[in-house]
């Protein structure tokens, strides 16, 4: 129980009548790389958004490092609309904003790259350090925090060296080639000093060679930063290569979980991906 970094406890996310995530429970242990896969529209990104506080779940709870960070139960209109079986399980309402969750040590990347477009590579990473800033706005404005600022800049320089972006650090983030933008987004997430890194389709739009490089890169940063990684991905090569365990979602429901070998043989997963003949 205590070595769980992340625990999602019977989480349901319902938009009106649409159940995007249905009674999802999963656990991620320290140091693991866990993948969340599923066909398009299965609710993977919604699950990420629930975990990172973008959406408030209709019902359910999320635990992070043994502490409950999110909990909600259906109220008002949703009480009637809610179709789940575990409506009475949760009572409290804990609804932190995403920045709060990031400060707890969970950082994410986005499916469609969301870099700060008018900023340089260096600044993109430096801004992510802002959430670790302790100085207030007065001391920051009047440069009373020189030490902290210098330390942050040095840390960013080091980080950029590690991820191999230090040669382009003064270029605009959007002028980078696609693969490097992806890498920069991961670097930015790392700058927030997370213990759990959530990657939403990090290899989307990459060719096989870039995907291979990314696979190696993810492995490297896990070691170097002592990370736990939770990722959504469609590139099965990448998923099967680096995942310790895999969860499979289909229509919001968890249909399988296990090691890559188990998942590859699982009939329900194969059906979900390939479809089942109507008359079978």
């Amino acid at each position, binding site marked *: 129980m205590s070595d769980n970094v992340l625990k999602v406890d019977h989480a349901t996310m319902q938009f009106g009548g649409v159940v995007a995530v249905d009674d999802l429970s999963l656990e991620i242990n320290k140091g693991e790389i866990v993948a969340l896969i599923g066909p398009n529209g299965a609710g993977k990104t919604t699950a990420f958004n629930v975990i990172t506080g973008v959406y408030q779940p209709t019902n359910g709870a999320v635990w992070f490092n043994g502490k409950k960070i999110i909990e909600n139960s259906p109220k008002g209109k949703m009480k009637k609309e809610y179709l789940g079986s575990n409506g009475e399980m949760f009572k409290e309402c804990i609804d932190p904003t995403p920045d709060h969750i*990031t400060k707890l040590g969970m950082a994410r990347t986005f499916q469609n790259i*969301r870099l700060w477009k008018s900023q340089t590579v260096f600044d993109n990473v430096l801004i992510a350090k802002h959430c670790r800033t302790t100085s207030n*706005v007065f001391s920051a404005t009047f440069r009373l925090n020189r030490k902290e600022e210098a330390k942050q800049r040095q840390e960013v320089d080091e980080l950029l060296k590690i991820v191999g972006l230090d040669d382009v650090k003064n270029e605009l983030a959007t002028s980078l080639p696609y693969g490097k933008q992806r890498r920069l987004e991961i670097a930015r997430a790392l700058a927030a000093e997370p213990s759990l890194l959530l990657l939403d389709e990090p290899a989307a739009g990459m060719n096989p060679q870039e995907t291979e490089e990314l696979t190696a890169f993810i492995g490297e940063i896990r070691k170097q930063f002592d990370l736990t990684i939770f990722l959504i991905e469609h590139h099965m090569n990448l998923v099967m290569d680096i995942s310790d365990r895999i969860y499979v979602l289909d229509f919001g429901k968890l249909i399988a979980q296990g090691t890559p070998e188990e998942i590859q043989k699982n009939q329900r997963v194969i059906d979900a991906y390939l479809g089942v003949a109507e008359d079978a």
Partner: protein
Amino acid sequence: MDLSRKKKIFTALVLFVVLAGCIVLDVVLPSYHIAITVIKKATVYALVAVSMNLLNGFTGLFSLGQAGFMLLGAYAYGVLTIPVAKRAIVYQYFDGGVIHFSLPEVFGSIFGTAVGSVIGMLIALLIGGILAALMAYLIGLPVLRLKSDYLAIATLGFAEILKAFFQWNKLGPVTNGSNLLKSYPVFDHATPYVILAGLMIAVILLLINSTYGRAFKAIRDDEVAAEAMGINLAKHKRMAFIISSFFAGIGGGMMAMYSGTIAAAPFKSAMTYEILLIVVIGGIGSITGSVIASFLYIISSEWLLRGLDSGTFLGISAPGVFKNGFRMAVFSVIIMVIVLFFRKGIMGERELPDLLQKRSKKKKGAAK
């Protein structure tokens, strides 16, 4: 010499030349000369435009409440600095008002008249800024949940309400109702305006280049990403709104100093639009742009194009065409041309030191 050092020297040089030029003008010209008036008004507008740019250009919050916050600053300045002896005349319809002290006189009695009254005036300005900031905090609670156009309309409405509120007769003992506040001490020379506004703008620049300023820019570029990277949207938006209003309040106090009288009526939405125009012409996201644009705007509207209203312009005498209102027609055309040819404003997102860089980059290209 490396580029960043060159930039620093260039910036320092430009600032020095501007300040020296202003002092020379102050010594040579009488204080009622149009050049001095223009410098005063332009510096005030520059400060307010920069404060608006902090919000609209750097944080991406489209707010149109600037005139309202200026009004607060102006009234705070006037109410706190009118000499006690003159209050009976100023507040003639309200039995001399309810406030019976004047900050310049209070501090004058402590530090001596000359130094003390300047301190009192500065403190009155500061109080105006703080009042505007407090109001921004209160307004921000409900209003900052809104986005883009909706925020603009809400803040615009607030400014109009505030204007009406200050003209309310029941508040007369403090605000003098819809009558003028006057006879308060002002700086006659242009240099104090330039120094004051320059210092305020420098503070805003420092803020923008600090970690908080970077967070503001992140919110402007992508709110979702900013929030996901641990930037508290509510807190930072509120902060930008309050700081921007603080400087708008100080700008309002300086506006009162410049104009010599205070009434609520001039602080109408047209004033906000003027400032917005300056921000857009200068370049959304460029402090230097806002300052340059405000000087261009004020110089041309108050001085160079004056002739268009009064019959003779550039030596051409055509009283039939050049009469009242023609200036604004020409002015609108000029603005349209500027907006068409400089899509991102005069400066885009560049600042003063970047002007040097562009030139050196071109040189590099030529060498190749």
